């Protein structure tokens, strides 16, 4: 009888063990089999009823069952514990980090800030001036002839007959030269306006950085050296460049600086109109008439001036087709910079 009960119990345990997966199951199992009122305990109870000569045999058997049972119980318990601990510690580290929102500089200010930084490191100060400017500073003092086309309604926005939206930041040169003792060495960034229909290539306002250095013995060679230093810092030390004679009313001799197209490396492409060159700035020696207008004697002092368009340069740097995208301020655009 007892023998049967022992083997029944063994069979039952064998069957049950694999189904135990939680501490709750295990606890039920313990109560059913291992507790004081459990099935194993009742076997020991029964052992008392067997004849004495058989007691050691059955006793051994039951003890064996107990040992196995306890060992199995421990095994399962540690297995369940291990799983639980594992579950507790495991973090899905592929979860995205808590991101700080990304702020961006507008590409045009970015370009202007970089230009400023280079010129400041070369010893230039920074000056600003009005966007609403008078004819005197915007044109007359800058040696524009009275009938110069730029003074037409077609090219310039007028507020009054003699008040315009400045067409360049160059008038700040006049203000600086008139209000400051020499030497002056400044750059003049800012927004300028042209009465021009808005298209992919042109906008009615854009941003310029002008530069000015007036002192004794400032020469065209100094101008060239400064521009080359700037260009190598701004565009890269390996660029090729060229200087071409050009014309501006307020400088003479005047030049324009081209650098090799960064898209095609000079082979010729759509951006550089097949020429291999990109025009990046205009410059020259301050015209004697301009110096005179600012109360300086051109026999005693000389100076150079230069100017560049931040919008145009940004277009080239970032490979943008349509200038209008700068001022749509689409977040998807801004987030790229």
């Amino acid at each position, binding site marked *: 009888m007892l023998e049967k009960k022992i083997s029944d119990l063994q069979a039952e345990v064998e069957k049950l063990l694999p189904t135990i997966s939680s501490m709750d199951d295990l606890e039920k199992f313990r109560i059913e089999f291992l507790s004081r009122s459990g099935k194993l305990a009742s076997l020991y109870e029964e052992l008392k009823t067997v004849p004495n000569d058989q007691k050691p045999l059955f006793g051994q058997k039951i003890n064996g069952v107990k040992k196995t049972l306890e060992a199995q119980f421990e095994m399962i318990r540690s297995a369940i514990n291990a799983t639980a601990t594992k579950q507790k510690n495991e973090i899905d580290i592929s*979860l*995205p980090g*808590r*991101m700080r*929102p990304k*702020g*961006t*500089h*507008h590409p045009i*200010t970015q370009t202007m*800030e970089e230009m*400023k930084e280079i010129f*400041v490191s070369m*010893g230039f*100060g*920074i000056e600003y001036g*009005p966007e*609403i*400017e008078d004819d005197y500073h915007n044109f007359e003092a800058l040696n524009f002839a009275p009938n110069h086309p730029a003074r*037409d*309604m077609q090219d310039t926005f*007028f*507020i*009054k007959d003699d008040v315009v*939206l400045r067409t360049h930041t160059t008038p700040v040169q006049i*203000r600086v030269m008139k209000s400051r003792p020499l030497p002056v060495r400044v750059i003049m960034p800012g*927004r300028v*306006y042209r*009465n021009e*229909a*808005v298209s992919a290539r042109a906008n*009615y306002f854009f941003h310029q950085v002008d530069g000015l250095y007036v002192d004794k013995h400032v*020469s*065209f*060679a*100094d101008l*060239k*050296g400064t521009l*080359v230093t700037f260009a190598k810092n701004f565009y890269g030390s390996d660029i090729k460049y*060229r*200087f*071409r*004679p*050009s*014309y501006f009313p307020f400088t*003479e*001799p005047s*030049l324009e600086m081209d650098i090799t197209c960064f898209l095609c490396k000079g082979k010729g492409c759509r951006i550089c*109109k*097949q*020429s291999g060159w990109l025009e990046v700035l205009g410059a020259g020696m301050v015209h004697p008439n301009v110096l005179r207008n600012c109360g300086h004697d*051109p026999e005693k002092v*000389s100076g150079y001036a230069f100017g560049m368009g931040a919008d145009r340069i940004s277009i080239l740097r970032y490979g943008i087709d349509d200038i209008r995208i*700068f*001022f749509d*301020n*689409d*977040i998807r655009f*801004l*987030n790229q910079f």
Partner: protein
Amino acid sequence: MRISYNWLQRYINVNDSVENLAQKLTSVGLEVESVDYLGKKFEGFVVAEVIDVQKHPNADRLRMCKVNVGSKDGPLQIVCGAPNVEIGQKVIVGLIGAIVPHNQHDPTGKPFTLIKATIRGVDSFGMICSAKELGISEDSSGIKVLDPNAKVGTALADYLGVNDVAFELGITPNRPDCLCHIGVARDVAAIYKKKYSFPQYKLTENKKTSITKIATVKIENVIDCPRYTARVIQNVTVKESPDWLKQLLMTAGLRPINNIVDATNFVMLEYGQPLHAFDYENLAKHTIVVKNASAGEQFTTLDGKTHQLKGTELMICDGKKPVAIAGVMGGLNSEISENTKTVLLEAAYFSPTSVRKTAKRLGINSDASYRFERGIDPNITAEASARAASLIAEITGGEVVQGIIDLYPKKIVPKKITLKRSRVNSILGSDISSKEIKNILSSLEIKSAPRKEKNSFVCVVPTSRPDIEQEIDLIEEVARIYGYDNIENKTSSEVMFSKPDKDEVRINSIRQWCVANGLNEVLTNSLIDRSTAKMFSENLVTVKNPLSVDLEILRPSLLATMLQTIAYNYNHGATRLHVFEIGREFSISTEKGTYLKGYIEKNVLGICLSGDANQLSWSEKQRNLDLFDIKGLILSLLKSIGLDNSDFIYYNAPSSLTEMTIGVEINNTYVGFIGRCKPELAKSFKIEKEVFYAELNLDQIVKFDTVKKFKEFSKYPTVIRDVAFVVSKTISVGEIEKVIRSVGGEEITSVTLFDLFEGKSLGEGNKSVAYSISINSAEKTLTDGKIESIIKSIVNAVVTKFNANLRSI
């Protein structure tokens, strides 16, 4: 300006590659914008003679031809399908490798490259072409048969006379002398240190008639017309121009019209002198009078357009009526026609200002006005007239009447300018010798004679160079021909160290802070429409000549254009807009001005927050932005730039644009505001969501000093105690905080609201506020008793003052 390479060769033998010439022209300031190789598309096509024609053994429609292409390798066998091929014809053969411009068998006519082909078992080494295949005419009926005199082996481009190169030059406004081939030849001569020559021609005059007998000229306005010349050519036959002339004009970008007009255009592109040919028979009394128009008069130009005249326009009139607008455009009433037999040829010098004003006012931009406006050489007029008369006679079969009428009351003489070598070198930073300066000037036909002073010259500037007015202009000429590249790039000039001034630094740190704190910088329009602008201000700055009514007013507030940006982004699917701009606001003022009297230009920081507060994330619950986002942002910003120890907020600031408006003050100076855009304002921009806006006046912000000084902090422990009250919702937390601070005295180092809620359990109309209070003394460790008494007095004060209930300590 388009310059033909072949045409240029008439005056100077360049003897250099096209590429080198282009590069050199650019280097002296005649920028070559593009080079057009006109013969390129005919490469691989030659004049050939058909020497044998046989039937194709396998195809009825095809013929086997032998053509002599002038090659020493003998004739080529070509299979040809054209019906008109015959022995002895001169034809155009495309050799293997040539690209046929037009494929007759392709619906889109795409070009194709000739390869050796086997056509129905017979080898074919090229193609006999039709005119259509070459793109020279629409005729595709058969092969193009050439003149029997065509020379076998001649390249097609040469045969057609199109083997030319056109340079597109960007001529700056100061160089009107280069708006013609001779002018460019003059600079080319200076570049290559060569000589150029004027055209050789023979003017044969008919001695039987003298011009003074058959025509008269009178100038009534000598200010605007300093010089007027006339010649007459009789018995002309108006017809098409000869090929060479048409070809050169087309290369230079002009459409041939008839031999007389073409001749005048040719001479204009040769000497830079615009000319005009009148039909002599249509000139009343055979008279020319140069005078101003009558006010209100109407005039129809060659292009068929009728213009209303003001009376300021200089007109060329005959004995009765105006026949041309001087220097701008001829009239329909005296135009050269097929029936013209006698021509009166005008060559004149009109004042640049007069032509410019008239052309501009009438909206006409002609080749003539373009040149007169910039200034032609007043002393080339008679020469150009003679040249044109001779050419007209030559190509029309006409006869030039003897003599010229040349009214030139006050001769324009070359300018004399002093040039010092020392000035040249100090301006350029160079060391150019006197001899080299003299040579350069002389290569530009500027004569220089030494003055008493050493290394100083008197220069005589030809009248073709109106741009050269003073010494600096001569220095530029020297620099340009000497070569900008030959002047050093000097970097050794003394460096003045500078650091950006503090205004610049502060504005930069504001920009950097905004970017670092997740704001996108925007740059918005400065011009807006009047009705939008009016919502923001009454003192508007108006553009007199705006591009459109939408762009009439300078923005009175950054908010106006930033709202446009917000609206644009919502329309394009954005849900979270945190943007800032640093820009100008404009207004008029009766008193002063920022720079110009009457105009205020204010530098402003604008921040707009709208839409979602957070980026979409697994860990943070999304919420809508509220006022405290922007309030916190501004306070953090001000603290970050060092403006942290001012009491700078006051509430319910008046604002027409925002509600819940908070004024920002630093040291009792108003510097800006924070608020929520009024819904009606947002709606007028078609924005449905809330927009929070903050604006700081940067011109004010940069004025405050932020000298940082170390302040000793207490060595004694800080005790932190929390207190919570239930108060009426009407009581602001700001007021409670004020009371806590004032009652607690200087031992209170911080008061932080850390919990705020409402709930039924608190009773209707109530809220719970909980503060964390830091207590500390600089002198000693505070006893428990002291702390208890501070807390107690705080609690008592809050309870009495606000009728509050203490929830917990």
